[in-house]
């Protein structure tokens, strides 16, 4: 299959005696929004950590564009185009908004020591292009006027948006969002909804989403995976998941 972006099979993560993730399988195609849902402590974030190289999975295969990535360190995986956000916003708080975006473009800028020392033409050009890209994204997420503000001083919703923009600066093909709507008000959640769909349709990337806001998840997901206590429970379209008796049982308990 040509359009298969990410293929995960048999993913298992064991912390000593605790089986946090057990035999999880996932599949993400090009330009898809895939959600992973499950009750608190189900192991969703652990799956993310395994996929992005923050944990070394105990067993299983992670194939990204036909290439196994499960034993690679985090920054290498990220360079291949799998980039994530965090459940708790992790911005570079004391740096300005635009600096946050420039750090993320590290690999696309001129990092040569001598070029920077003597401010060569190519260095200036690369910096200007970097700032231009950053400015475009700041316009899109409505933070253009805060460009030189410290990132830590932004409002929470703005920080969330900045974090997504920062990921986009690395030019990923798979964006992994860990509870992006947590702590947002309904209006901000709607904006987020729009942004995610726009990322898929206009920037041609796939999105893997962990989220508790069911309205958001059911509204935008192409497919949904349900995880419960580390085990895969079900997967399918939003409709199928909503009517799946196992899922209802996991969320609401047995009657």
């Amino acid at each position, binding site marked *: 299959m040509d359009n298969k972006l990410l293929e995960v099979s048999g993913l298992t993560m064991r912390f000593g005696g605790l089986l946090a993730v057990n035999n999880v399988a996932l599949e993400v195609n090009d330009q898809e929004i895939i959600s992973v849902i499950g009750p608190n402590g189900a192991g969703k974030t652990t799956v993310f950590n395994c996929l992005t190289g923050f944990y070394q999975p105990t067993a299983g295969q992670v194939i990204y564009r036909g290439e196994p990535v499960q034993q690679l360190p*985090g920054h290498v995986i*990220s360079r291949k185009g799998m980039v994530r956000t965090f459940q708790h916003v992790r911005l570079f708080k004391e740096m300005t908004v635009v*600096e946050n975006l420039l750090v993320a473009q590290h690999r696309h800028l001129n990092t040569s020591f001598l070029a920077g020392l003597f401010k060569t033409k190519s260095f200036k050009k690369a910096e200007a292009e970097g*700032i231009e890209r950053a400015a475009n994204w700041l316009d899109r997420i409505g933070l*253009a006027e805060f460009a030189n503000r410290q990132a830590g001083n932004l409002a929470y919703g703005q920080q969330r948006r900045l974090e997504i923009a920062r*990921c986009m600066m690395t030019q990923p093909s798979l964006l992994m969002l860990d509870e992006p709507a947590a702590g947002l008000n309904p209006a901000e959640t709607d904006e987020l909804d729009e942004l995610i769909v726009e990322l898929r349709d206009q920037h041609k990337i796939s999105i893997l989403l962990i989220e508790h806001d069911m309205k958001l998840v059911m509204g935008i997901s192409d497919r949904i995976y349900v995880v419960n206590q580390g085990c895969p429970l079900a997967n399918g379209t939003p409709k199928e998941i909503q009517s799946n008796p196992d899922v209802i049982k996991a969320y609401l308990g047995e009657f």
Partner: protein
Amino acid sequence: MSKSSFIDALIASVVMLILTSWLLGLQLDNQPDGLRIILNDAAHTTWVIVGVVLVFFTQLFKAPISRVFSGIKSKGQDSGFKLPAPEEKPTLYRFLTIAALAGLLIWPFVASRGAVDLATLTLIYVMLGLGLNVVVGLAGLLDLGYVGFYAVGAYTYGILNTYFGVGFWTALPIAGCLAALFGFLLGFPVLRLRGDYLAIVTLGFGEIIRIMLNNMTEVTGGPNGISQIDKPTLFGLEFNRRASSDEATLFHDFFGLDYSSNYKVIFVYLAAVLLVVLTVFVINRLLRMPIGRAWEALREDEIACRSLGLNPTIIKLSAFTIGAAFAGFAGSFFAARQGFISPESFTFIESAIILAIVVLGGMGSQVGVILAAIIMTILPEMAREFNEYRMLMFGLMMVFMMIWRPQGLLPMTRPKMEMRNG
């Protein structure tokens, strides 16, 4: 000023008058027939009146005065005085740079020899402070063994000069590179460490270097150190009274001047100025380069760095290496200025002082660090007459600084980026 403040002021001055006239205006006089209370001399009376008037007016204008002070203070609690970013006021910065450079160049010709020598020492600390600022202030890696790299630089020049007769300007880059290599080597084992753990390991590293120098007696002379290290030369011209060898030319002979030992002091000072200007320039550029931003990003959040494809290993190692290189330059310069080095000069207290310079100046702030280096070297010299209270004053100053201005003298300003309009 209202009526009530006038009455308040009046009461305060009357109270002041009653109290001080008892204490200062009267005197016990030892007369043959016993003690007598007499009026004090006119000078005391004048001072009592001055005091009373002063109290009256301070009380009267208490409200406007306190408003002024509270204005300063409330600003101080926000962020305090901050320098504007260079991008905001380019002309101001250009003017200040030129003024500072001119001052630095004129200084040796107007100041006394001792003052010039002290200024050279200050410049060495400026270099050290700026170098450590990269590691601690920017990359956020707490390094308590920075003096180790300083020692490596000093001994590199000392040994190369004594055994192989290498001149200062040739040894300078070698010393820098060797110190950088040591920084790189230290970087490896401490890659996984942060904060307190890193501090302990680097502390150990600094001590290892010092003890090694102390014990490798055959090479380093042990506790006796290395003496008679050559001073820097100006394109081969020596500053000594007599030429060290037959082919060497002397500075005063070459220019047909009478010999003066001042030339040497001034030249060493100017060489230090040159090195410091280079250091400031290089680090200033590094700050605005991708690698400089990466250092700061690493300080802020290592996990986020990794998630964005930045390799923390390379960032940390580069910070250690570049920081150490500047210590190496400063070290070889120190050896050249002093002409004598021994492990005594590279004890832990030096590391502590350099770290204090960085913290006092404001982490990451170049101007702050330079200012702090000047204060930290000149104050102890000025306070020499207080003898044993010197260190106590020094300590007190640090304590008060950390209470009143924990962000440092001149905290770092973020570079402002020009965004396109619209």
